[in-house]
């Protein structure tokens, strides 16, 4: 088996007395889409934050392309090739759509120009990215506060893709999207897989999960309770694992 692009081993995280994650293992290979599912409060977003350098784990190990990494900041994660769409989107309300889309990844001129921003290049590219997501904005220089929930989510997704990341993490990327935008994002995930990227996607929509995921990791109360391969489960298995109604693990292990 190839080295996973991203590999977590026994990752744990406590918030004060709350055990948000307990010794969670997870691996994502190039060209693979892994879905992370679980009930509200299961620890999915916490896991995402750890992999994105937003939170630091209490224990465990993270390997990127087989190399152990301390992702001590989102910057470090980005440098390791990991880009994330956060559940709360994490946009800067005072900046406009283009600025948000390229935030931290601006296209700019030479140092002697003071890293002058090449706004026209960014606008052009923004147009293309947003079109590919079916996101319609009335003007690219609208501050994002003035955008609708779905438009904002579109920007957040666009941002994660703009610089060809090796690993893309999407925390409930379709929650606020309309029917066609949702379709585009699911197609997009397929394309990301084809491009050989590693994708982690969180969703509460089991239909979407079943459609895109090569593998499904189920969290419950911070613990990994099951892992299913594509085709290796029934919808009931999935819901059962999430809610704890009956517990399965396709690896044969038990909880």
């Amino acid at each position, binding site marked *: 088996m190839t080295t996973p692009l991203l590999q977590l081993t026994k990752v744990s995280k406590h918030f004060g007395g709350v055990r948000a994650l307990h010794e969670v293992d997870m691996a994502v290979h190039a060209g693979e889409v892994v879905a992370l599912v679980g009930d509200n409060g299961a620890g999915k977003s916490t896991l995402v934050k750890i992999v*994105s350098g*937003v939170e630091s784990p209490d224990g465990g190990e993270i390997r990127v392309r087989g190399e152990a990494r301390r992702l001590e*900041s*989102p*910057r470090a994660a*980005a440098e390791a090739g990991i880009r*994330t769409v*956060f559940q709360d989107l*994490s*946009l*800067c*309300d*005072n*900046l406009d759509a283009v*600025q948000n889309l390229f*935030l*931290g*990844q*601006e296209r*700019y001129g030479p140092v002697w*120009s*003071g*890293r*002058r*921003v*090449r706004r*026209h*290049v960014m*606008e*052009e590219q923004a147009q293309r990215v947003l079109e590919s997501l079916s996101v319609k904005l*009335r*003007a690219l*220089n*609208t*501050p994002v*506060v*003035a955008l609708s929930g779905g438009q904002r989510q579109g920007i957040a997704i666009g*941002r994660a893709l703009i610089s060809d990341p090796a690993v893309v993490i999407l925390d409930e990327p379709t929650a606020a999207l309309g029917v066609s935008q949702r379709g585009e994002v699911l197609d997009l995930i397929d394309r990301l897989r084809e491009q050989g990227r590693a994708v982690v996607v969180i969703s509460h929509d089991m239909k979407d999960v079943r459609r895109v995921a090569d593998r499904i990791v189920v969290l419950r109360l911070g613990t990994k309770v099951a892992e299913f391969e594509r085709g290796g489960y029934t919808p009931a298995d999935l819901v059962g694992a999430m809610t704890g109604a009956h517990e399965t693990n396709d690896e044969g292990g038990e909880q």
Partner: protein
Amino acid sequence: MTTTKAATNATAPETGPTGPRGIGRAIETAARGHRSIPVLVVLAIIWAVFYSQSSAYLSFQNITNLTLQIVTTAILALGVVFVLIVGEIDLSSAVLSGVCAAVAAGLTVNHGLPLVVGIAAGVATGMVVTFVEAQIIMFGVPSLIVTLGGMVILQGLILVVLPPEFTISVAGTPFAKIASTAIPAGASYGLAAAGTLAYAGYRFFQHRERASTGSLTSLATVLVPAVVVAVVLFGGVFTLTQQRGLPMPLLILAVMLLIAWYATTQTRYGIHLYAVGGDREAAQRAGIPVRRMVLYSFLILGACAAIAGMVDSSRQLGVSVTSGAGPLMLNAIAAAVVGGTSLFGGRGSIWSALLGALVIGSISNGVQLLGLSTEVQYFATGSVLIIAVAVDVVLTRGSLLPGRRA
């Protein structure tokens, strides 16, 4: 407080789905770039009111007075704007300006070093102090506390830096030339012409750049602003050279504003600056080096404080323990806020330093010119300040410009 409604409504405009794209877009761009316009209207009102009370108010002499009176505040406010944009506050830079002036004047006047060395040492002092402050702030101590403590320490430091007689007189020394140098009318017009050309050139370059990607911009977006800039520059030079040529402090301020404008609006640095101030967590998650941006702002403030201090003491012909004391600090912060910069970070332009200082300076200049009694001067100064910003609030509300929440 800004009521919720106002805050929500007062976000920037978009063109309608059906609106004529070209015109709508142009108006919109103009409006977005020119949050300053209401402040200019306020300024015009203030000038009209004082002029109606005393015609000397708009004499060449008084306009020159006014511009010189505001330079120190404007330069310091410029530094303060950078710090406010990243969501921090500063209370120490006024006293710091005194310390830097003491260092610079001490080396130049009392130790006979060349003026450039003195100036360099002054700027270095400013930046070292704000560097240290920024480190402590990044450690987690609120900037209000760090800079309040810093202010107290600097009040002690100026006693140490000054010679035992606690004063340095600079009249008649090279140091006095910083403020007293005047650029002759001819050269000044040359500068205005160069400025206009450079600006028009840059605009034209942007126009070509856009055209290359197929965006539609008309040549009017080059010509109209260029004409406005020409009028402002030549008008300014004409007015200010009526007395003794263009005063050097104004040129210093102009150059600083120019650099700051470019850095905050045209570069990657500028976007990151606003991002950090708008939502620090989101900026961090986007991979922006938040701490470094905060540090940069404080370093800029340090340099501005030093320059403000040196210009001021050169104008006052001396440095003493009162240099940088008095209302300078509050005036600089107020100038930034009057100009539209938010105390809560993420909002404001560098023009707010200039415009705010002009508003505050115009009020105090006018009130003093009228020769009112001390009490009435206090009443007038305070109320006109409040009314000026209230008028700005009304104007901004009526328009499509982003509202203020400071």
